[in-house]
C-alpha cells in the first residue's frame, strides 16, 4: 500500500476525499446512501436540454463539474497539455437559514494542471472555497463558474474563456466549438452503475479550437490547439463494487472524436455500464455500449510520488467502426497527488493516439484519466 494512504489522522478528511473523488470524475454513481437524506434530484429520466441554460448550474443536483482539457502548442512547436476542472459540491439541498455569510450550501473545488511536454515537467494545483464572499460560485442559466481567479465562462459570442493562475503560472484561453454539444448516453443520461439513479447528465464540446497564452514567470507563450469540454451533474457516487474508472477523450486528425469510459470493479474487470460516444466530423454521434469496444492495458508505469501502478498505455478496439487505436501518454508523469482535502491521487494527462481505421493509418491527440489506482479502494 502506498505510504500516503495509510495516515490515520486524516481518516475523516479521507471521507471528504471520497466525496471529492466522486467529483473528480463522477463517471460513476451509487444509490447515494450517504446523501439520501438530503432529497437531492437524481438522474433518472432523459433531461430536456436547452442551451445556454444548461451550461449554467443545476443546484438541485449535488455534484456538478465543468471540465476542460486540451493539447496545445506554441508557434515554435513546444507542446503543452492543460486541465482546468471546477467542481460544485452541495452540502444541503436547501440553503441553511443562518446569519453568517460563511454558512455553506455548496463547496467549490478546482484542479489546475499544465503538462510541459517538451521539458517533461508537470505542474498542478488545487483550490477549495465555500464562496462566502462571492469568491467562488457558479451561475444559473449561463456558463460561469469560478474558484478564486480560476474561472470558466461563456463569452457573448458563445465562445468559452478559461483562466487559471497559480503562483507565477497563468493560463488564459479562448475556445470556439467546431461542433454542437454532444449528449452522451441516452440523450445525455449516462448510466454509471446498475442501481436506479446511479447516473449523471453529461454532455461535451468534443472539439474546441483553442488559442490564448500561458505565462510562466516573465515568459509569455502564445498557444493554439484543440480542447475538450465536459459538463456533468448528478447526485450519486460510485457503485458498491466499483473502485475507479478509466476515461478517454480522443481527437483524431481526421476530424472524428472518441470518448470512452469504463468503471473498474474490485476484481479489475470493467463494469457493464461502460460506454462511450463516436462523433463524426459533422457532429453526428454514435453511442457505444459495453461490449462494443475493448480496453487492453499495455505495460505498467509506477508513480515515483505515490507508488501507484498505472497502465502505461492502452489498446482500444471498436470492431463496429473498424478501429484499432493505441493510446500512450505524451509524457509519463502526469499524476496529480493532492493533500488538501484528503489524500487523493489520479493520473490525468495528454495522450497521443495512433492506429488504423479500416486499415487506414490514423493519428490524433487526447486526454486520459485513470483513477482508483493509488491507495486503498474507495469504499
Amino acid at each position, binding site marked *: 500500500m502506498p505510504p500516503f494512504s495509510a495516515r*490515520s*489522522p*486524516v*481518516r*475523516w*478528511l479521507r*471521507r*471528504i476525499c*471520497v*466525496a471529492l473523488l466522486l467529483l473528480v470524475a463522477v463517471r460513476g454513481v451509487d444509490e447515494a*446512501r*450517504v446523501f439520501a437524506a438530503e432529497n437531492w434530484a437524481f438522474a433518472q429520466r432523459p433531461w430536456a436540454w436547452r442551451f445556454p441554460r444548461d451550461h449554467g448550474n443545476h443546484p438541485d443536483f449535488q455534484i456538478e463539474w465543468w471540465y476542460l482539457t486540451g493539447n496545445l502548442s506554441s508557434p515554435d512547436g513546444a507542446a503543452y497539455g492543460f486541465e482546468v476542472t471546477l467542481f460544485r459540491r452541495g*452540502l*444541503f439541498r436547501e440553503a441553511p437559514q*443562518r*446569519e*453568517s*455569510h*460563511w*454558512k*455553506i450550501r455548496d*463547496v467549490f473545488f478546482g484542479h489546475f494542471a499544465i503538462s510541459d511536454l517538451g521539458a517533461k515537467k508537470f505542474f498542478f494545483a*488545487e483550490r*477549495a*472555497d*465555500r464562496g*462566502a*464572499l462571492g*469568491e467562488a460560485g457558479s451561475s444559473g442559466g449561463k456558463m460561469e463558474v469560478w474558484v*478564486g481567479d480560476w474561472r470558466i465562462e461563456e463569452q457573448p459570442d458563445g465562445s468559452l474563456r478559461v483562466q487559471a493562475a*497559480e*503562483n*507565477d503560472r497563468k493560463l488564459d484561453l479562448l475556445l470556439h466549438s467546431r461542433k454542437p454539444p454532444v449528449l452522451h448516453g441516452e440523450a445525455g443520461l449516462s448510466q454509471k452503475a446498475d442501481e436506479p439513479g446511479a447516473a449523471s447528465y453529461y454532455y461535451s464540446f468534443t472539439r474546441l479550437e483553442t488559442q490564448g497564452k500561458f505565462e510562466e514567470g516573465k515568459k509569455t507563450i502564445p498557444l493554439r490547439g484543440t480542447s475538450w469540454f465536459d459538463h456533468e451533474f448528478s447526485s450519486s457516487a460510485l457503485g458498491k463494487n466499483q473502485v475507479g474508472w478509466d476515461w478517454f477523450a480522443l481527437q483524431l486528425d481526421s476530424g472524428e472524436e472518441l470518448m470512452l469510459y469504463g468503471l473498474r470493479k474490485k476484481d479489475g474487470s470493467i463494469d457493464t455500464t461502460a460506454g462511450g460516444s463516436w462523433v463524426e466530423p459533422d457532429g453526428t454521434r454514435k453511442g457505444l455500449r459495453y461490449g462494443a469496444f475493448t480496453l487492453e492495458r499495455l505495460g505498467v508505469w509506477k508513480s515515483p510520488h505515490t507508488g501507484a501502478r498505472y497502465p502505461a498505455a492502452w489498446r482500444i478496439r471498436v470492431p463496429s467502426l473498424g478501429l484499432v487505436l493505441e493510446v500512450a501518454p505524451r509524457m509519463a508523469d502526469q499524476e496529480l497527488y493532492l493533500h*488538501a*482535502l484528503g489524500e487523493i491521487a489520479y493520473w490525468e494527462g495528454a495522450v497521443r493516439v495512433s492506429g488504423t481505421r479500416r486499415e487506414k493509418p490514423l493519428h490524433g491527440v487526447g486526454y486520459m484519466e485513470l483513477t482508483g489506482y493509488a491507495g486503498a479502494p474507495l469504499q
Partner: protein
Amino acid sequence: MLVLFLRHCGRQIARHPAMSAVTVLSVALGVALFIGVLVLNQSALAAFRASVDATAGKANLEVSGDGVPMDEEILRTVRSTPGIAAATPLVEQVCLVSDHPGEYLQLEGIDLFSNVPFRAFTLEAGGSSESDLLEFFRDPRSIALTATLAHKMGVRLGDRITVRTETGPANFVLRYLIEFHGKAVGADEHLALLDIASAQESFGRVGKLSRISCLLRKGADPGEVAASLRSRLPPSMIVQTPEGRSRRVEKMLGAFELNLTALSLVSLVVAMYMIYNAVEASVVRRRGEIGLLRSLGLQRSGVQALFLGEALVVGGIGVLLGLPLGLLLARSLLGVISESVTAIYALLHIERISLSAESIALAAGAGLAAVAAAAWFPAREASGVEPVEAFSPGTLAEKSRRAGPWWAVAAFVCGGLAVGLGWLALHTGPPTLSFGSALFALLGFTLLVPLVCREIAQSLRFRSVLPRLAMAHFAHSLHHNGITIAALLAALAMYVSVTVMIFSFRKTVDDWLHRTVTADLFVAPAINVRAGTQQALPPAIEEAVSSLPSVAACERYREQRILFRGETVKCAALRFPVAARYSGLSLRQGDARQVLAESAGADRVVVNESFAKRFHVREGDQIDIPTPRGNRPFTVAGVFYDYTTEFGLFLIDWGAYRRYWEEDRCQTLGLYLRAGEDPERVRQSLQRQIAPVGDWIVYSNREVRKEVFRVFDQTFTVTELLKGITLIVCASGIFLNFVILSIERRREIGVLRSIGVGRSGVEAMLVGEAALLGVISSLLGLLAGTALSLVLTYVINPSFFGWTVRWTMPWKLLWELPPLVILTAILSAYWPARRCARIPVAEAMRME
C-alpha cells in the same frame, strides 16, 4: 599522570567529604538555577510559538485588528493584493466552559477550505461512521478539542459542551479531536476549533473576522507585500509575520525574563566564588604535597592542571546534579510563570517543559566554564609554590595584598561609570546600559572592601591580647577575608536592593490604588479574570447594573491594544465626565478634573507616563493615532501616573472612541455607590442577581486591591530565591574561609596553645573574627544594597518600564538583616574553629 590525578582527587574528596559536598552543592545550585530559568524562558516562548503556529500554520503574513474585530470584506482586499497566493480567515474568542467551572477554551472559528495550505493539524473523528462526513460544516454545533483538554474535562466524542460567549451561552457537541503536527505540537491545549460560520454566529460577530493568515506567492518579497497590504487596509490593521506576533510577545516578556536571567547569573557567580574558595582551601592544605610533587619533577603547569582538573571533577559532579535539579525547579515553577505571564502580558498556558540539547549544553558549558575560571587563580597560585618553601612551613608567608590608594581610585572610577551609564540609559538608551550602571555601582563597593577592612583593623584597638591578635589576623588575611567579604557584600547588596525596590514599588502601587481605583464595585465577565481581558459585557447586564438605585454613577471601561509607531500600546476608553468627578487620577501637570472634563467628547487623549517617555510626547502635543477610520490627530491633554502596565497607555473618552472605533461594548463596569450604601451588601445581591452561574464576576474595591497584590507578589516570588541564595553564600563562604584560615594558622595556633591559651580562647578568637567579617559585610552590603536600590528605582525601572517609583526604605530590613548575617557567620565559623582549636599542640609545633 592519570593515576596521580585520580589519587589527587580521590584523596581530597575522601578526606574532606563535607567540603566537597558543599562545593558540589553550590555548583549544582548555580547550574540548577541557570538551566531552570533558561528552560522556563524557553518553555514560555515555545508554548506561545506553538500556539501561534497551530493557528497560523505555514502562514507568511497575518492581518489583524489586534483584538478589534475587522470587517470580513477585508479578506477580499487581502486576497486581491499582488503577491498574496492564499488567505484564510479566523474568528476567535476565549470563553469559559459553563459546565466545567474554571476551564476555558480558546475558540478558533476556521474555514477548513481556504486554510488547507496553512493547516498544521488534523481532525480525528474517532469512529468511522459515514454520517460523520462533513459534519464539521453541516452541524453548526460541531466543535473540535485537543485530546488533552477533552481528557481533562472528561468529555467524549458526542458529548455536549456549553461555553459562555460574549453574547450568551452557546452549546456545542464534541465531534473531533485535534491533532497538531510539526511546529504546532505543544500548542495550548485550550485551543478549540469550530467552523467559521458557527463562530461568527455564536460570538455575535457576523460579518467580522479576528485575523487573516496569508501565504505569499513564490518569490514575493514579504516586506513589499506587507507594505502594499498596509497601503490598501485601514491604518489600524496590523500586518505582520506570525514570527512578528511571537516576537512582540517575546519583547513584552523580555523584561520579565531579564529579571529571571539576571537572577540565574547571580547564582552562577556565587558558584564561582565557592569554587574559588574550595580550590584555595585545597591548595593551602596541600602545600606539602605540592612541594613533594614539584621536587619529584612535576612541572608548574602539571600542578596547575592537577588543581584545575580537581575543580572540574568536583564541578562536573555539581553540573550533573544541577541539570536534573534545574528541570525539577522549572517544572515546579511552570504554573506560577504561566499565571504571571497571563496576568501581565498575554494568555499563555505552558504545559510542557521545552528542553533542547543546546540549552543543556549551554548550562553545562556555563557551569564548567564558571568552575574553570574560578579555579584558575588558586590553581596558578599552587603552581607558584616553590618546593623549598613548601617544606618549611615557617616560610608560610601571609601574603596580605596591600590595599593601596589605587583601590580607592578604581572604586571612584567605578562609581563615576555607574553614574555615567545610568545617565545614558535614562537619556539616550539603550535601557540595557542601566544594568551596566548597576554592575559598576556594585563593583565600586567591592573595591572599597580592602580599604574599609584596613581602616577598621587599624582603628579598633583592643587592650586584651586575643582580640588584638584576632584583629591582626584579620588585617593580615585580607587576601582571603577580602574576597569572602566582597562575595557576601555582592549577595547581600543584591538581596537588599531587590527587597528595597519591591518594597518601594509595592508602596507606590498601594498609594496609587488608593487614589486612582476609587469605584466601589466592579463588574466584568468571569473569563477576563481567568484569562486576561477577552470579552465584553452584554448590554443587558450593563443596563441591569447601572439602573440599580444604589448606584450613583457608573464608569464604563474598555481596553485594547493597538500598534502605535511600531510599538504595542494600550488604549482605554472611559467616560471622562464620570472619571473627572469620581476618579482620583493624578496628572503630572494640571488638574485632572478640569483636564478630563474639558477633554470629554473631543479628539483628546490622556497618556500615561510610560507612553510619554517612550514616545517623547508632552502635554499639548499632537499625535496621530491609527484608528479603523484612518490615522487621526489627537491632542495630548495630560500625562498621568500609572502602575497598571509597563506599556504605553492612553485614555480616550467614549465619545471619541465610538466615533473612530465604532465599538460601544465595555469590558468592565465600575460602580460608584450612593453615600451610605454598603458595598459588600450590594455586591452580594448583584452577584445573586446577574451571575447565578458564574459567568460574570462582581468584585469590590478591596478585592481588586487584593488581586493586584496577589499578582504583584506572585510576580516577585521568584526573587525570594535571592534571599536563600544570600544566606547560603554567607554560610558556606564563611565556612570555607575559616577552613583555609585555620590551616594557614596552624603553627600560630600551636604557639598560642603552647603558651597557655585554652581551646575556648582559640575558638573565641576565630569566631570573633567571623563575627567581625559578618558585621563588616552586612554593613557594607546594606550600604551597597541601598545604593543599588537607588539605581534600580531611578535608572533601571524608568528606562525599562518607564514608570516612576518613589523610593521607600523598609527600615525593618536594617535591624533584621545584620543580626541574621552575623549569626550565620558565627555558626558557620564554629565548626572550623572548633577543629582548629583541637589540633594537638605537639603536632602543630612540629612544623617548626
